[in-house]
């Protein structure tokens, strides 16, 4: 492989999108109201669509003639490089919205920065996806405020979701030698600058929502290295079932 660091980097973004899209898709037919059922699945479609473009590019970089389906469906758990946040269970609606909000608040400034990448395929995916992500973040921010500043129960559920998910947010900014290599080549943005923007969005929205940022600084990571939580295997068994049972099947 010519550019192993870039391949790994593209997989990360693709895997974050695919796994979160798969999780959101679980709401299909189970949303608390019809409008939210539709919103969750529309956001899932955007994310899965983004992952297809990224897997196409990753397959091109890998150069072994695979297609996006083979990358999406036929890898082992430790070959997926998504962060732990996106594989966490949907829980109640507050948990799903908060997970999505923390992710969207990262994705928007991340894509904005990635649009400047000299790697044309990355810049193109970013320019396309940034427009969609703006709608996602708007939607989840409004829900965080509605729940936090809503009834006692909605407030308490939103706060418990934050208290539970906070430990996974640090991994949004996880960097290793892949980032160092690509940053040195000027191909990808430094995540430290994005963290500042993320924290500012999170602080503003949570304060508007009368919700608190947890004071404990428990941190979990490992996803970027292929070490996942106990939930990942269950997601993959669902996600990969058709391709494992009927190899190379197509619609």
């Amino acid at each position: 492989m010519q550019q192993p660091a870039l391949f790994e980097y593209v997989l990360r973004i693709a895997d974050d999108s695919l796994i979160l899209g798969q999780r959101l898709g679980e709401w299909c037919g189970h949303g608390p109201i019809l409008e939210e059922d539709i919103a969750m699945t529309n956001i899932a479609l955007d994310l899965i669509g983004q992952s297809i473009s990224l897997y196409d590019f990753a397959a091109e970089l890998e150069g072994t003639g695979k297609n996006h389906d083979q990358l999406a469906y036929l890898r082992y758990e430790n070959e997926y490089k998504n962060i732990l946040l996106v594989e966490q269970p949907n829980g109640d609606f507050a948990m799903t919205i908060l997970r999505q909000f923390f992710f969207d608040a990262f994705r928007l400034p991340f894509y904005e920065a990635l649009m400047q990448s000299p790697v044309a395929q990355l810049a193109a995916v970013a320019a396309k996806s940034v427009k969609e992500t703006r709608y996602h973040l708007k939607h989840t921010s409004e829900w965080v405020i509605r729940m936090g500043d809503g009834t006692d129960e909605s407030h308490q559920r939103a706060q418990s979701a934050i208290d539970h998910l906070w430990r996974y947010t640090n991994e949004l900014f996880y960097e290793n030698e892949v980032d160092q290599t690509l940053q040195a080549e000027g191909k990808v943005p430094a995540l430290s600058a994005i963290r500042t923007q993320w924290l500012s969005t999170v602080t503003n929205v949570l304060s508007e929502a009368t919700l608190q940022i947890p004071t404990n600084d428990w941190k979990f990571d490992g996803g970027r290295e292929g070490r996942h939580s106990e939930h990942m295997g269950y997601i993959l068994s669902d996600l990969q079932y058709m391709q494992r049972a009927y190899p190379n099947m197509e619609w």
Partner: protein
Amino acid sequence: MVSAADIRSYLEEVSDPEIPVLTITDLGVVQQIYFQDQTWFVELTPTYSGCPAMQQIEADILSKLKEKGIENAQVKHVLSPAWTTDWISEEGRQKLRLYGIAPPVNEPDKSALFSEPPRVACPKCNSKDTRMVSLFGSTACKAHYQCNACQEPFDYFKCLK
């Protein structure tokens, strides 16, 4: 031999699978058309990354060209430049309105997180007294609105820039 302009005119007969009153050229998803290595290439850009209609559109393009006697054609999916609702033709906007879907209006500041929802005229009675019910409507590209004047629920084709 046919020209790229001929091909484009053939594509004016291909309708969007989700909004059949629109052709794919009204929608602005057809980009460059060119002949290379004995093959006609049609560049297609998705409206949204996950738009499930893209594969259907590709199949419809190929079958339309076949019907016109062009066998050696390929559809190329391109992301850049990214599609924007500005590419929907004036005629396309008129067709949307007649079909009951409010066409995109210019939303001034897309970067603001908490801007007011855009003022959208009801496609039935033209009243501007409407409200957004949900940011996500029947497809990713639409929001769900309701008219306060005539009560009509309708889809609004969201501005994407």
